[in-house]
Each structure stands twice: as structure tokens, then as C-alpha cells.
């Protein structure tokens, strides 16, 4: 299951048409901003990583817990404050990678990086972006790339930290 939660988690907008016309502030972005998924700290987290953009005051923390085999991401959470793009992307990130194998989570990171920067060759064809399609507008606003990727870069780092922690526990 790679789809991001399906139709019940995002509004296809008939109301508020103002925002669907807006290339950046798509209804999906606003919906995730208003109703963020997996906000908070993961219980029993294996690692937490911070993504911050001091210049605009964005400060996010991504925490995650691997499953017993340390093969998949059992739970992924995010916390902190960022702009609508940053928070929506964080929310969508947690939906995309929760329950997925580590390798797929890493492919997600590469895919989203490629998607928002217009590097289509980096986008894995088998991963269904779903709500993340709403980030396409970022390509016209390079200033916001860092916002869109803040949680994803933190995820990447947290994943590495979690793996090392679990490997150390195993050998120690």
C-alpha cells in the first residue's frame, strides 16, 4: 500500500476555489496545515532529528521508531512550527513512509527531492505521490524548496541515526 491515505484524507475542493487557483497554496496543502497528521513525538522513538530554517523561523523535529527487525518504519511523527508548506510536507511525509521498509523511505526522500526541484529522473516511478502532488507548485518558487524538504531531510537523518542505534544495541 503506497497510496497516501486515499480520498478521505484530502479534500477535493469545490468550496474555497480561491486557494485551488493558487499554485502554492493548494487545498491539499492547507488541509494538511490545518489538520496535520502524526503531530507530536513518537513513543519509544529510536531517533529524533531536527530540521530548521533559522531565517524564516521554521523549526521541525522528526522522530521515528523502527519495527522489531529494524527493517521498516513502524511510526513516524513530526513536531514544531513551520510555514504552511513545511508543515504540510511534514504531515504528508509521515503518511507516505509510515509502515514502509527503510529502503522505500529513502527512495521517498529522493523522490520528493527530485519532484520539488523538477528533477524528474529522481522520481521513483512506482511511488504514488498522491497528496504530495500538491507540492508541484514549489518548482516555480525555489525559495520554498527548503521549506518543502525540511521534514524529509530530517527524516533522512533520523533514519540513519535510528539504524545506527539499533545496530549498536544489537552488537552491544
Amino acid at each position, binding site marked *: 500500500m503506497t497510496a497516501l491515505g486515499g480520498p478521505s484524507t484530502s479534500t477535493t475542493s469545490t468550496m474555497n476555489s*480561491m486557494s485551488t487557483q493558487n499554485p502554492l497554496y493548494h487545498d491539499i496543502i492547507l488541509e494538511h496545515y490545518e489538520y496535520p497528521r502524526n503531530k507530536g513525538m513518537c513513543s519509544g522513538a529510536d531517533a529524533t532529528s531536527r530540521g530548521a530554517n533559522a531565517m524564516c*523561523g521554521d523549526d521541525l523535529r522528526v522522530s521515528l521508531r523502527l519495527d522489531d527487525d529494524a527493517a521498516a518504519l513502524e511510526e513516524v511523527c513530526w513536531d514544531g512550527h513551520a*510555514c504552511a508548506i513545511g508543515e504540510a510536507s511534514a504531515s504528508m511525509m509521515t503518511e507516505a513512509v509510515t509502515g514502509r521498509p527503510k529502503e522505500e523511505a529513502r527512495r521517498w526522500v529522493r523522490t520528493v527531492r527530485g519532484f520539488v526541484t523538477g528533477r524528474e529522473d529522481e522520481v521513483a516511478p512506482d511511488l504514488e505521490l498522491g497528496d504530495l502532488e500538491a507540492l508541484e507548485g514549489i518548482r516555480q518558487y525555489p525559495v520554498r524548496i527548503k521549506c518543502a524538504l525540511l521534514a524529509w531531510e530530517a527524516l533522512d537523518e533520523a533514519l540513519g541515526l535510528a539504524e545506527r542505534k539499533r545496530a549498536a544495541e544489537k552488537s552491544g
Partner: protein
Amino acid sequence: MAVIDAVSAQRPDAPLDIASIRRDFPILAEEVNGHPLVYLDNAATSQKPRQVIQALVDYYEHYNSNVHRSAHALAVRASERYERTRTLLASFINAPSPDEIVFTANTTEAMNVVVNSWGGTHLQPGDEIVLTQMEHHSNLVPWQVLAEAKGAHLRFVPLSPTYKFDVAAFTQLLNPRVKVVSVPHVSNVLGTITPVAEVARLAHQAGAIVVVDGAQSTPHMPVDLQALGCDFFALSSHKMLGPTGVGALWGRRELLEEMPPFLTGSSMIDEVQWTRSTWAPVPKKFEPGTPNIADVVALGAAIEYLDALGMERVRAHEVALTGYALKTLRERHPELDLYGPSDLTARGGVVSFNLKGGAVHPHDVAQLLDEQGIAVRAGHHCARPLHGVLHTAASVRASFYVYNTLEEVDALAQGLEVVKRVFRRVLERPQEGGA
């Protein structure tokens, strides 16, 4: 010589003719995202009148030459124009002498000259440096580095509940260990005007010198150094209709004379031998290498432009704009957190705010305003610790200058309606935890 034709059309006893002034600024005719440019980011940098742009072009087209080094005609002319700006600036801020004006790259470099050159030779372990909570990083970070190196301590004058400089709290901080007090003349976030004359009087009584970050005051109001009574004053050309790459440090002659140079090399020397050199007199002692000649010349044109407008009138226009902005924003957008004093006599034309405690992130506000051609700034505005005092990570900042209009304030207010529409559902929710 630039002909200031539009400016000379200003009637001497009347308020400024803003429409006429706007015609002098080519960039104000630009369109952004299909909208007329509404430039409200003047605290970051100001736009340039064609008189300044032309001065730059004239220099490179007709008399570009290195200064002070040759006897040929171009060099003589370039040197004259370069030094003329020094004289114009001295007069503009009522410095006792042009010899006390040092050209730097910007205010930040000017601060570094004071910190390193004066601070480096006057501070002892245990000494205290008094700053304010309002500091721009350029009047904070250099002092941090100095304090660390010298074993000195930083103290911060707090804001009053109405965002003003708390004079009572300041007097509490004064003691014999305080060697220097450094303050912003006008805060680049709050617009707060520091009562420099009073600060200087109190500081001198306590035996401390006074340094003023004048980057946000010099462009916007009359500055009279002799009335202020401070010991050092820094400013930037690009914030006062001049080009980037030039700033100035004014310092009391006796202080500049006893200070060692900051950067050394050519031009700031007198005699050079193999193993030692002597220094040129002040101000040349602080101007190493080839200066930013062209931009200093163009700054001269900016000073002449402002002089012709009259800084009292520039200030009056900005007071009107700021008053209208505060009133309009309060009426149309009561959910805004407006930072800075309400007292218009105590603030400059900088209005920073957040939308309902940051429920809509400043970055998003600025982005949506930009889509409507309105240029404001979002972030901490190089004053991160100050934002901590404001209990927020970032803010939106609109800042005015002489070419802005009441209609542009209306455009800002209208633009915020759009922001609120896009984020309607977020704004309707009960506040949780704030920014």
C-alpha cells in the same frame, strides 16, 4: 553634475509632492506578478532615484580613475568628487568635521571598526558592554566576539511594555565597569527610536562611550550628531537612496586618532619601510586600499537628493504613512499582532506584525503578498534574539520610505484580505498554543 530637476520642483514650504518624487525612481514603474510593484521593504534596502543611478554612470563614463594617487585630470576629478561626498555627508549629519567620516563597505563594517579598533584597545576583563534587546545582528555579534576575547560581559537594556527603550532600566545597568553603550537609533524591526541624547548624557556620566547604529535613522529623519552627543555613529548608503557597498563611520576625532587601524595596507599609510610603517592621518587611516569610489560618488548624489527634499519633510511623510498604516491595519485586521510603539513620535516607519500569533506563518503571508506585487520581508530580520523577546520565531515586516503612498498602505491592507481568505479555515479555528 546631476540635475535634480524633479526635486527642485518641490515647493519649499509645502509638503512633499510624492507623485513627483516617484517619477524619479525608475524601478517603481515595474510590475511584479502582473501587479504594480508596491515596495515596502525599505528597511532592507531603498530604491534609487535616477539622479543617483546617473551619477554612477557619469563617473564610469567620464572620469573614472583611482583617487589620491595621480596628478592627471581624471584622478583629480575623481578625488574631488570622492572627498566631496565626505563633506556632504558630514554636513548632512552635522558632524564637526569631514575628517571624522570614514567610508566603509556598510554599517556592519563600520561597527567592526569600532569594536575591533576601539574595543580591542580599551576593554579589560570584567568590563561591561551595554546593548539593547533590539539589536540587529551587526550591532550584536561583533560585541559578542569582543566580549569573549576580552573576558567582558554583555548587558541588554530591555524593552518597555510599549516597545520603547526603557531608560529607567538602562540607568540600573550603568556602573563603573560599563565602558561602552551601543544602541540602534531606530530599530529595524520595531521602529522604536532610542532617545540617544539622553542615553549619551547618562552614559558619559558613567564614564562610558556611546556607539549608535544609525542605519535606519539617517535615511528617514534629520540626524544631528552634535545634538545626539554620541561618540561613534554608523550608517549605510544603500538604505538612504544610495548604492550598495558603501557605509560610513563617524567618530570623535580624538577617539579615531588614538585608535589603531582596523584593516591595513595601502592608502592608510604615511611612510612605509621594510619592517614598519606609520599611519595616514584620520580618516584615511581607516580607508585601506582602493575605496569604492564610484559608489561613494553616487552616495553624494543621494545625499543631495535627500537634502533637497528636506529631512524634516521626509520624516513628516513617513509619520503620516506609519500612522495611517497602524490605523488601517488595526481597523481592517484586528487579528494582527502589531509590534512597536503606538506613539508615532517614538517610532520610525517600520511596521512588523504577525497574523493571529503566527497562525499564518510570516513566510506564507509574504509569499501571498508577493503574488499581489507587494514586497515585504518575512523572517527574523537579522534580529533573532529580539524575536525571542516578542515570543515568536519570525514576523512580517513592512517598511516605508519617502516614495511610498497611502494607496500603497491600502494595497497592503487589501493584500492581507487575500491572505486571510486563503487561510480562512486556519484563522477561524480557536487559537492553540500560539506561534
